[in-house]
């Protein structure tokens, strides 16, 4: 038994797919400011393909989430494809191998974060999705004694804060880095979609 059930993982992905659909235009608008105006459509294409997976055909949350990662890799297209793809693949591996409590979820989140850092050769402060995910993992760890639900709520809040704090940074990775100084003051699309992912997790994995 992993920290979450296959059904919970499926609910998370379904919720995120819906939220991405609702926010695709906004994400693409953000990417128009600092990139190539496709983050919303990239993520929406990817998550629609993920939402089409048959949850009942997977026998562990890890198997489902691995398939979701591979689906993102092949359908997103942009940098966010390998990044979110790596996140879910690493998350899935750690989840199936980990304990069935909040610490199992923490290990999975941390593995996902490390995967993105490695894949993107990026770190906190580069104005990327890491600036939302890294503080979220920290907050989850701090709150994990209070249970998964409280920890996820804290993580989602920390992600939003991290996303907002990154707005003032100069982008050092990805297309936005072409803008140099001019990326300052612009909200990062990847940090925004990452915050949505953690908010979605707080809604769907809270009872884990």
């Amino acid at each position, binding site marked *: 038994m992993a920290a979450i059930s296959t059904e919970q993982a499926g609910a998370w992905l379904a919720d995120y797919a819906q939220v991405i659909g609702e926010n695709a235009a906004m994400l693409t608008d953000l990417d128009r400011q600092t990139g*190539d105006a*496709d983050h919303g*459509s*990239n993520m929406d*294409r990817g998550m629609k393909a993920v939402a089409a997976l048959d949850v009942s055909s997977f026998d562990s949350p890890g198997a489902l989430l691995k398939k979701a990662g*591979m689906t993102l*890799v*092949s*359908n*997103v*297209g*942009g*940098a966010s*494809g*390998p*990044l979110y*793809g*790596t996140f879910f693949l690493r998350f899935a591996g750690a989840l199936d191998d980990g304990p069935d409590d909040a610490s199992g979820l923490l290990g999975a989140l941390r593995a996902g974060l490390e995967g993105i850092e490695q*894949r*993107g050769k990026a770190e906190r402060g580069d104005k990327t999705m890491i600036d939302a995910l890294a503080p979220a993992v920290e907050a989850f760890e701090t709150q994990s004694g209070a249970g998964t639900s409280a920890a996820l709520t804290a993580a989602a809040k920390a992600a939003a804060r991290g996303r907002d704090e990154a707005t003032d940074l100069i982008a050092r990775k*990805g*297309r936005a880095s072409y803008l140099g100084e001019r990326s300052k003051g612009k909200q990062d699309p990847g940090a925004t979609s990452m915050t949505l992912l953690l908010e979605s997790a707080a809604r769907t994995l809270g009872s884990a």
Partner: protein
Amino acid sequence: MIGIVVVSHSRALAEAAVALAEQMVPQESRPQLAVAAGAADGSFGTDASAVAAAIEQVDSPDGVLVLLDLGSAVMSAEMATEFLDPAMAEHVRLSGAPLVEGLVVALVTASTGATLDKVESEARNALQAKGKAVG
């Protein structure tokens, strides 16, 4: 002879670059060459699975050189190497060479049976001819 893979966000770009480079080498002496470019629905993007498949298609014991367009293609290519059999991944080299200029030089150099090291370094220096010409 090494194999060559072209990774680009644009299928049209990858195919046009290959067509230009292939002019330089008669068909019978060309190395194996595969393209992984564009998202499945034809829009711009790269797909790590497609890159892995392209590498497998041209794989050779002499190695595979992977040319890329933009920085973010590197992520897909690195992920692709993680999908490969580790023995194969070992002789796959991602190149920082300029896509078009590097591909022309890589194709010409590879067609002579040059080693992966040699082809890679020639491709990386592919801008020299143009730089000298521009003066």
